[in-house]
């Protein structure tokens, strides 16, 4: 897992005007404040740039309210990028723009052409040693299979996601071998499943709130461990947990609006390492 979290590029996408009203949501009925969403997005991108990542911001598409959540459109690992086939039919068009961007990064781009397959990037957890794919409302077995075919070097294990939108709605990698996990039953069960399926030993960082378990880990040369996590304002208890991490550069990022439409911190970017080629 050496080199885990090393990235050079971040791909994000602008928020379309239709976002506030048109984005898909599972439960939250709270209205999205488009302005605050834009501000948060801006701050988010600023953080990425400040870290030294080359940020590619794709233009918004008004016909695709969810297009800001680029994570679901592609899975990038090493020199290979898998363009997904999002589970929500309304989002399938989002992939096109991503394809262009990834191709421009001269990554080995693989498309998911099987029409029976669905896969949201939000269901894909790459630990550095293996993949876990959540089988959720958005991702099916076939999609996971294609991912396994694409990344042959790694074990790909499936994890049932009974509640919540995505696997990464309640977990993420908070560092090499460190899994941040929510406290809900769903999250804990998924963690157990992952532990059973894996030959590797992972440490876990349990946070009270599922949504807070989604963070973004980056390891920038010269800057060490960097973690973008939820703010104390949003999830005070969970934020405390992150604050206990040592040797980390902790960056609280506000995500009040996106969370209303099931958007977590990692949802808004695709990270790639252009130097990852062998």
């Amino acid at each position, binding site marked *: 897992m050496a080199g885990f979290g090393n990235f050079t590029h971040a791909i994000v996408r602008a928020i379309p005007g239709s976002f506030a009203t048109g984005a898909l949501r599972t439960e939250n009925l709270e209205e999205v404040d488009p302005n605050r969403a834009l501000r948060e997005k801006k701050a988010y991108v600023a953080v990425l740039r400040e870290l030294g990542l080359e940020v590619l911001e794709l233009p918004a598409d008004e016909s695709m309210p969810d297009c800001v959540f680029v994570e679901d459109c592609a899975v990038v690992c*090493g*020199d*290979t990028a898998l363009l997904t086939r999002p589970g929500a039919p309304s989002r399938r068009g989002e992939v096109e723009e991503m394809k262009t961007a990834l191709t421009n990064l001269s990554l*080995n781009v693989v498309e998911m052409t099987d029409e029976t397959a669905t896969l949201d990037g939000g269901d894909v957890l790459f630990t550095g040693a*293996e993949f876990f*794919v959540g089988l959720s409302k958005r991702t099916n*077995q076939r999609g*996971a*299979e294609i991912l*396994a*075919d694409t*990344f*042959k*070097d*790694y*074990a*790909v*294990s*499936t994890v049932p996601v009974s509640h919540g939108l995505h696997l990464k709605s309640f977990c993420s990698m908070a560092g090499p071998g460190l899994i941040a996990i929510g406290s809900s039953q769903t999250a804990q069960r998924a963690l157990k499943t992952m532990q*059973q*399926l*894996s*030959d590797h030993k992972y440490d876990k960082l349990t946070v009270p709130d599922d949504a807070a378990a989604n963070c973004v880990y980056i390891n920038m040369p010269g800057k060490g461990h960097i973690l973008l996590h939820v703010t104390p304002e949003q999830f005070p208890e969970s934020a405390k947990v992150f604050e206990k991490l040592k040797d980390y550069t902790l960056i609280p990022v506000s995500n009040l609006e996106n969370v209303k439409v099931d958007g977590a911190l990692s949802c808004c970017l695709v990270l790639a390492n252009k130097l990852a*080629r*062998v």
Partner: protein
Amino acid sequence: MTTEVGSEPEVKKEPEKSPEEQEAEQQTNPSESAPNGDAEPQPAPDNAENAEAEPAPSDPLSTPSPDGQKKEKGISRFLPPWLKRQKSNSQAEPRDGHAPTDTPTQPPTQEELEDGQEEEGPKGEGTAVQPTGGAQEVQSGEEESPVANAETQPVKQKEGEEWAPESGVPSALKLGKKMKITVCHVTLLDGTQFPCEVEKRAKGQYLFSKVCEHLNLLEKDYFGLSFKDNTDQRCWLDPTKEIKHQIHNSQWQFAFSVKFYPPDPSQLTEDITRYLLCLQLRQDISLGRLPCSFVTHALLGSYTLQAELGDYDPDQHRSDYIAQFHFAPTQTKELEVKLAELHKSHKGMTPAQADIQFLENAKKLSMYGVDLHHAKDSEGVDIMLGVCANGLLIYKDRLRINRFAWPKILKISYKRCNFYIKIRPGETEQFESTVGFKLPNHRAAKRIWKVCVEHHTFFRLTSPEQPVKSKFLTLGSRFRYSGRTQAQTRQASALIHRSPPDFQRTSSKRSARSLDGAPVVSVSDHTHPLVSTHAAGPGENGRDSALELYSDSKSPQVEEGAEPGKGAATAVPAEPASETWKAADDSSELKDLDKTQEEVLRHQASVSELKRSFMEAAPEPRPDQWDKRLTGSPATSLHLQAHGSLEEELTSLFLSKACFSGLMDPCSTSVAPPESTLAAVSEKSPTRLESALSDSRDISKSTEDDQSSGLNGQPEVIEVVEETVVIEEVVRVARPQSSAPETAATEPALEGKDEGSASSDSESEEEAEYHPQLSGSAHLIREDPEEEEQEVGLNQEAPPAALKPCIIREDVTDEAAATAANMAEPADAQQQEGEVLVIPEKAPNGHTHDSEAPPTLFDEEEEPSFVNGDVSHVEGEHAPQVICCSEPPVVKTEMVTISDTFSAQKAEITTKEVPIVHTETKTITYEAAQLDGSGDVEPGVLMTAHTITSESLCTTTTTHITKTLKGGLSETRIEKRIVITGDSDIDHDQALAQAIKEAKEQHPDMSVTRVVVHKETDLAEEDE
């Protein structure tokens, strides 16, 4: 194999030490071996080993020989004429196979050496072994494989220590016959062919050693030889068995390949070992067996180039130089470009360094070292089972859907085409669970089972399971990996002090070319037949030759084993758990079952009928227990199967069995479980399950209390029955006087009950079980091709009996108790199975008599008497082993016995016996049962079950010990059921004889009361 068992108990302790001692002794004698050693360029360690091996024969002769002879003779005595015939030939061989097990501790190098010497060995051995005389003559040519082979076997036996005597005999035979030499063609990892002459009766070890010698390989424990069986499946050659018996009619074509992929290749000691591993991996990769990404293909390929071509040389390496190589299943131009690019970056790297880099990257691949097997889950969905160093992986398509690390697995078993693993309960779970998979056929199930056993042993254990001395009755043998474990081979490797052997790296080019300039023989490595991961051949050492049976109770490794049941052999707690899991299993398993619902219904109906009948018959009916038993009793099912097996369908069989089993045969129980579970799950399955579980583990524990039932874990079941040997030992205490007649009547009843309980427990039917945590005893038994079930009921002594079914009935009638049995028996009789009922003779004072014929017996019939007589002899010969039965010494009853029907083959013999026994029925219950909470268990019954599997056979032994007080008598009855399942080459007679012999040996003071043989042929089996 079976013979081993017998010997083990006696010899056990000695053998362990003996190898070393022998070695030492042998070393002293090196003179013999010396010549050989000189001739061969073997490393020092080898010589020592050789010395050992060679000398060993002599030593063994001194000590072991007696045993071996005894065994054989003893067996022969017991055996009916027909049995004898068959056995005479085969027994020796099987034993040989076992021998290796004893030696596992020896360093690999020695083994290798031995092998090498073995070839040469003829000389040394010749001296040691008489037969070798011929061999010596042969000395001149190592090549003269025939001799060598003969010798080799002896050597192995020597290693086995105990076997030496036998070896001597066989060798003699061989010499007399003149050995036939044949040429084996071994495809090496570099694609070259290595022709090797071997004697036709040579064992796998011999050939493997020759190959390793040819390769100059010392760290050979990671490797093995494989061949394709007639179904084109890759199988591992068992080093401990004769080659020809494994390959059947296939050609003598083998492939040398990696069997255990070291998780960390950097820990290998020698470059040559790593090189061979690289060759294997290149093959795996180019054939697509080891999937990897484009980048990885390029990277690994570039290291290959560096290792084989050296630094990139613009002058020499033109644009297309890579095209000559074959790196990936589909090799694109793009890949070649990338390869060249990377190749350039490796400048300055030596071939050895390149290999190391290659391995460091290859080992990270998720499928590295994963041996895949096609299977279906309980719902019929296609999945893949992957056996690897860490455990068992379950894949659906390319996705990993489950994983069972070795520590999580309590038991591995297979039955028919089903493969089961029993899982340790999780933190929050209370009960164990069993997961079943359906393999394409029986052979496939056995293959994966063996692979699991071997991988577990190799990677998880520090040393092969040591045979446990069975405290009690232990029958049966188990297949085990007896080669060195990874830990041991690492230790041994650390002792390798030789200058790195020169070896030439063969080019993996399509066109032959080698880096060194040496002519490359093999052009395309990749094209070579690959060894599929399947079959698990035993490691070099082969199975535990030392057959000592372990009591199940042993748990080799604490960690793994935390099996609930096992520790406390009978411990109550275990049972409940087992019940639960079974219940769960049942539901899941039900699906797997072949039977239709109709069948199930029928079965249930029959069961109920049986119960009724039983109740009537039984003097002291205990409805509850019986019901449980009946339903649960696998034994019944077994009987049924056995009987019906030939012609009838299993289901019908089961039904009849059920009745039977309840009373008489435990054996059936094991088989039945699956079915029973189906039908009866609601009813009583739990008990069975429990019993089964507990049994397997508990087996050897104190005979007294355990009630554990042995069913074993096999849930499903149905199908093939193998050979079941039931040995019942009856010891009566205190009242010799009891009148036979009365007792007889009562006894049967008692027996029936006991057995019934036992039956439920018995694991017997499983084809094979392996308790990762426990050390199991290993017996090897040769099984016949057809699966037959033989039940041998031995009361203190086992008479071989073959008989007619009719007799059985008679017995039954004689024995009132038999009634229960009757039900079952009739069926048996019809089916050809013979049951031998031995009526216990009562000796006034227990132990002493046992050996001899039952004086008191009223009705002994001619044949029975023979039997008894024989038995007694046997006992006398063997040192009596103490049986832990709780019973007080007292009068023993001996049985008389008799009848057996063999399947078509041997229907001829009939025996009658009528024993006499009186008993009043009282069943004393021992705590174990009560403890259980499950009240189902019958008290007073102690049961154990072993399953042993050798390649071709699976033997499950279930032991039930029942103590009863009747009137003033205390009777101890030990019933052993041995279920032997085999592919096709099993020598049933031999197996039976062995079982009987072992039983006698183990319980010298008891008499064999009954021998029941059921033969069942698996109609459904696909494999065969």
